[in-house]
């Protein structure tokens, strides 16, 4: 079950590529060349590894979850990215890209953010690197996640709300791309997921692959074997790719869980791979939620981090090649997952990975008793407590 590496020109099968204004193509060439040079540079790798270890807290624990396992009749191991500095896996990629930007001599950092986790991670990395940073955030998301807006500002970042379009993550990416087109000579765009034009999907995957690399070794160490199943949530898909990548040639069932919103039948969801079709958005050919005229659709999810009509091109390829499978968990399932994990294991998960927990609960009866599951817990739930309180009708 070997999965092909991306074909030439940044392709994953027929997905990926570079569908961007000409103005950006030379910058993408420059980024690709710099990354190719630095990825093999021992000093650069050492600098990043040091920061991941001593600043962020890597390696993150792999935790065998006894009470969740008992509840589900499975053996569940949780990869605890929620314990990283800034509270989510996003810092792995943000530090990698900002360090890259510094090596390239770029003078300014920009990023987009949905829930605010990638924005906080990038603001943090920019503070560490001593570079000015501007984060674009959909105006609606900025209201939903006002605490993260303030966090970014405390870190010295300028947060620019985006009023255009649907006022969510998709529009924040549009605005960040427009900024990059305008300031491309001096500015580095830190994309937050495995989306965008080549080389971003590969570059972000490589920075996140540390998740699966650690988890694979930890599984062998703690369980003496590989998992039967690896499961993670998918918005753009960076934590899932990060988890899956180390297992691509192993006999491990890979399951990505998208946001089912109010349910796929309602049309109010963000299940791009489950209900979308191939198309081009934000510089890459991938799956896309679009209408019959090729216009990108509005999405809905209780989780701002999954509320995105696109998905990384490598996921589209893993779906079509059959190497990974994709399911959707609706808002209610995610909240159930959140509650069960809180009560059985004392972990408040972010709403994004709560989708993976919820789907695992639905899937458990179909799995043989004692199936070994590796669950990617991409972030912690502090940011979501108010949203969950509202959803449960318990205002805090």
């Amino acid at each position, binding site marked *: 079950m070997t999965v092909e590496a991306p074909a030439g020109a940044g392709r994953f099968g027929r997905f990926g590529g570079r569908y961007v204004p*000409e*103005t950006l193509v030379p910058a993408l060439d420059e980024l690709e060349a710099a990354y190719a040079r630095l990825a093999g540079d021992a000093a650069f790798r050492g600098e990043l590894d040091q920061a991941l270890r001593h600043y962020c807290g890597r390696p993150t624990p792999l935790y065998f979850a006894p009470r969740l396992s008992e509840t589900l009749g499975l053996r569940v191991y949780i990869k605890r990215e929620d314990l990283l500095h800034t509270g989510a896996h996003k810092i792995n990629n943000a530090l990698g890209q900002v360090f890259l930007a510094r090596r390239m001599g770029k003078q300014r950092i920009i990023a987009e953010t949905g829930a605010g986790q990638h924005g906080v991670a990038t603001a943090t990395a920019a503070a560490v690197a001593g570079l000015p940073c501007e984060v674009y955030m959909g105006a609606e998301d900025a209201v939903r996640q006002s605490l993260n807006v303030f966090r970014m500002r405390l870190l010295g970042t300028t947060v620019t709300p985006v009023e255009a379009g649907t006022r969510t993550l998709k529009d924040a990416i*549009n605005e960040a791309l427009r900024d990059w087109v305008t300031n491309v000579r001096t500015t580095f765009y830190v994309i937050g997921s495995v989306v965008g034009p080549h080389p971003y999907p590969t570059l972000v995957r490589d920075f996140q692959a540390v998740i699966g690399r650690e988890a694979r070794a930890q599984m062998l160490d703690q369980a003496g074997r590989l998992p039967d199943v690896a499961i993670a949530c998918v918005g753009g898909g960076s934590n899932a790719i990060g988890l899956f990548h180390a297992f691509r040639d192993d006999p491990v069932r890979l399951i990505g869980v998208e946001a089912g919103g109010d349910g796929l039948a309602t049309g109010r969801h963000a299940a791009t791979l489950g209900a979308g079709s191939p198309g081009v958005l934000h510089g890459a050919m991938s799956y*896309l939620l679009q209408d019959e005229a090729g216009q990108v659709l509005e999405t809905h999810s209780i989780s701002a981090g999954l509320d995105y009509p696109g998905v990384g091109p490598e996921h589209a390829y893993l779906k079509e090649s059959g190497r990974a499978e994709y399911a959707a968990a609706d808002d209610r399932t995610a909240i159930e997952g959140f509650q069960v994990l809180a009560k059985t294991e004392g972990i408040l998960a972010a709403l994004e990975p709560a989708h993976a927990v919820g789907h695992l609960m639905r899937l458990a009866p179909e799995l043989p008793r004692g199936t070994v599951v590796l669950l990617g817990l991409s972030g912690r739930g502090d940011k979501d407590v108010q949203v969950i309180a509202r959803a449960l009708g318990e205002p805090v």
Partner: protein
Amino acid sequence: MSELAAVFQRLRAAGRRALIPFVMAGDPSLEATAAFLERFTAAGADALEVGVPFSDPIADGPVNARAAHRALRAGTTLARVLEMVADVRPRVGRPVVLLSYYNPILRFGLEAFCRRAAAAGADGVVIPDLPPDEGAALAQIAEPEGLDVIFLAAPTSTDERLAQIAAVSRGFVYCVSLVGVTGVRADLAADVGGLVARVRRVTALPICVGFGVSTPEHARQVAAVADGVIVGSAIVAVVEREGAAAGSALEAFVAALRAGVDAAPAPAR
């Protein structure tokens, strides 16, 4: 020879430069767009650029982006834009160049798009998020249909890329005047002439300049170095202000742009 090529040949023989006004189809309605295109023609346009609205126009500034969203809210689709073009093309008697992001074309189907666009009388297409590296498939399909695929050249393009862009472009090469998105600007970018000269060295195709060309004076400056002048956001801003009643204001503005273009000395060649 394509109609676009013929227009540029005639203009070149007469020592003139092309004026190509842009408007977003379906803003505020397709009927209004057809009427605007007739006004442009009356005011002296040599070719017409017709925008197909897209939900996520990453190469566009706020003026064109708002126009796209208004057009989409009015129910505009690529299929309906092509119907409008088919209807108006015989009346305007000018080449029509479509400007569309790639996804609506991809969704329509590359073959179906090239066939139907050509049948509607469209002469060319500009796709701001399709660099030549990704455009080979479309260019191949478009060529036998007689639809010119026009690629964009940017100030950031290397000389190697300019050669690649010119080699696959048909009709003309579209030079992006500035490093940035479309929009109304107070001043023309400083080194438009430099980019045009770099493109000149790698092609005999006509060279048109757009992005940020906002006033008759800008049009005059661009016409002094290029073969054609494309004005978008400044026109769309008039539509935004006056809606379906913008016809007279548009005709006056395009006539002023025409005067600007014609006031320029012929470019040194």
